């Protein structure tokens, strides 16, 4: 285990994948009251990958970290129930934008000295797809985004990435940042015994202010709106009617 990796996995608390979000009447954001919250699905894939590497003996420790309010402790417990060894909450009640999160994660990485950070490629709330790349920039580490396969070697990491034209394989020097795409793995379900065990695993709470980094929002989100709903059309009876409509009504073929 001498060369085994210490892995940091950032996780975000987001509106659950299955919830249909609604814009608040003041347009200041989406309705979060009474809405089911979950761990970001891409972060779940990142946790799974890290835990698998530890189970294979490639990693020595998996540390989950979340930045946000006290409720993020639930999200961290989800990661612990999947198999993370311990957790850190960087607690802040102000809105944290991707650059602020990257700065906080940089501070945690400098303290914990992991050889690998595995993030989800994007959060399904703001769909920003930025934090992993920003963290890699701040640390001066290489990055492999949109990963579908991760193979650790001796001081290096081979990562297959999903890119627009197909697949690309990168060799990275460690330490490095990887962001997980959908097909990296299928995350396990936490079992009840593991959920119980997770309650006893260490979870450290650190105030964001204690890190002394600039986390003020740089952008203002001034108005939220639901895009005009697409109107449903008609059902056609058969292929002949479909071809006729496409030719003579829609005129698209």
């Amino acid at each position, binding site marked *: 285990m001498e060369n085994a990796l210490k892995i940091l996995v950032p996780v975000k608390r987001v509106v659950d994948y299955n919830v249909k979000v609604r814009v608040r009447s003041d347009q200041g954001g989406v309705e979060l009251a009474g809405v089911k919250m979950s761990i970001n699905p891409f972060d779940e894939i990142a946790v799974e990958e890290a835990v698998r590497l530890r189970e294979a003996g490639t990693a020595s420790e998996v540390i989950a970290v979340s930045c946000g309010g006290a409720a993020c402790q639930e999200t961290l417990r989800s990661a612990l129930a999947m198999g993370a060894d311990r957790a850190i909450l960087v607690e802040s009640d102000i809105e944290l934008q991707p650059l602020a999160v990257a700065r906080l994660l940089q501070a945690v990485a400098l303290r914990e000295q992991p050889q690998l950070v595995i993030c989800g490629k994007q959060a399904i709330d703001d769909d920003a*797809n*930025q934090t992993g790349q920003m963290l890699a920039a701040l640390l001066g580490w290489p990055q492999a985004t949109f990963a579908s396969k991760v193979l650790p070697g001796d001081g290096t990491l081979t990562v297959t990435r*999903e*890119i627009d*034209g197909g697949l690309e394989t990168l*060799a990275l020097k460690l330490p490095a940042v990887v962001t997980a795409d959908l097909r990296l793995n299928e995350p396990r379900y936490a079992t009840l015994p593991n959920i119980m065990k997770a309650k006893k695993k260490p979870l450290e709470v650190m105030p964001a202010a204690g890190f002394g980094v600039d986390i003020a929002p*740089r952008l203002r989100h001034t108005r*939220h709106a639901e895009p005009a709903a697409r109107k449903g059309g008609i059902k056609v009876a058969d292929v002949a009617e479909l071809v006729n409509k496409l030719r003579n009504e*829609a005129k698209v*073929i």
Partner: protein
Amino acid sequence: MKTLVIAEHDNTRLATATLNAITAATRFGGEVDILVAGHRCDAAAAQAASLAGTRRVLKADAAHYADALAENLAVLIRGMAGSGGYRAILAGASSFGKNLLPRVAALLDVAAISDVVAIDAPGRYQRPIYAGNVLVAVESDQPLDVLTVRTTAFDPAATGGSAPVEPVASGPDLGLSRVTGRELSKSERPELGAAAIVVSGGRGLGSGENYQRLLEPLADRLGAALGASRAAVDAGFVPNDYQVGQTGKIVAPGLYIAVGISGAIQHLAGMKDAKVIVAINKDPDAPIFQIADYGLVADLFEAVPALTAGLA
């Protein structure tokens, strides 16, 4: 008010996403520079110079830019941003732009704005969040904004320009990463992100063989690009680069034909801006029918060959 567009290219040709990003850059109302960083990339630089709206093409030619590695490019762009006096740095919201621009923004200590669909004024943008279910107005007072732009929201730049190509000094080779392999899909069909017609298949096709046997002849007949739902990609029917949706490609063709796709919101996020949507599905309650202009409740194994024949 100058802007800098980061070209995506294979050293020979520009990706179409770059043409959309140039149009977005012109919305800032000033001069548009294009950075072509690559290796032996004269052809790509010449193409950039031929685009209307381009003030000049900045060419950084070095072996360590051959594969568009984010680490080396980000350092180069940071240096250029400092001396260039740019109000914004833009790229298409492709896997290239999404990989690179957040890294650039962090090096410059500015926020990045992803997937911009409208530029109302410098510092005033709109972008979708929550899988396209919410559109948010973003305001920035930063002196420099870093943006990826959704390609379907901006027309591609036209040709007809003749901008000068000026060499710029290369940055360092950080040696942090290297490309060891690529498996790129080869296709004679139009590019999925820019096609006028898209034929897309889902889990209902049952297998990769069925996908090919049924959808390829239809796409051939229409001159269409081929796409797929996440379910079809996960099941191994088609490669990952076929995926349309929140985390795949965003398309807005004139005609989108969804075959055997139920219509999860994550899929709709990638195609609901199509002008005309056709859905073929045997389940009359499939959510795809709620947004389809023309819905056909039918067994796709009979309907698709009949449609292909009917278009002859």
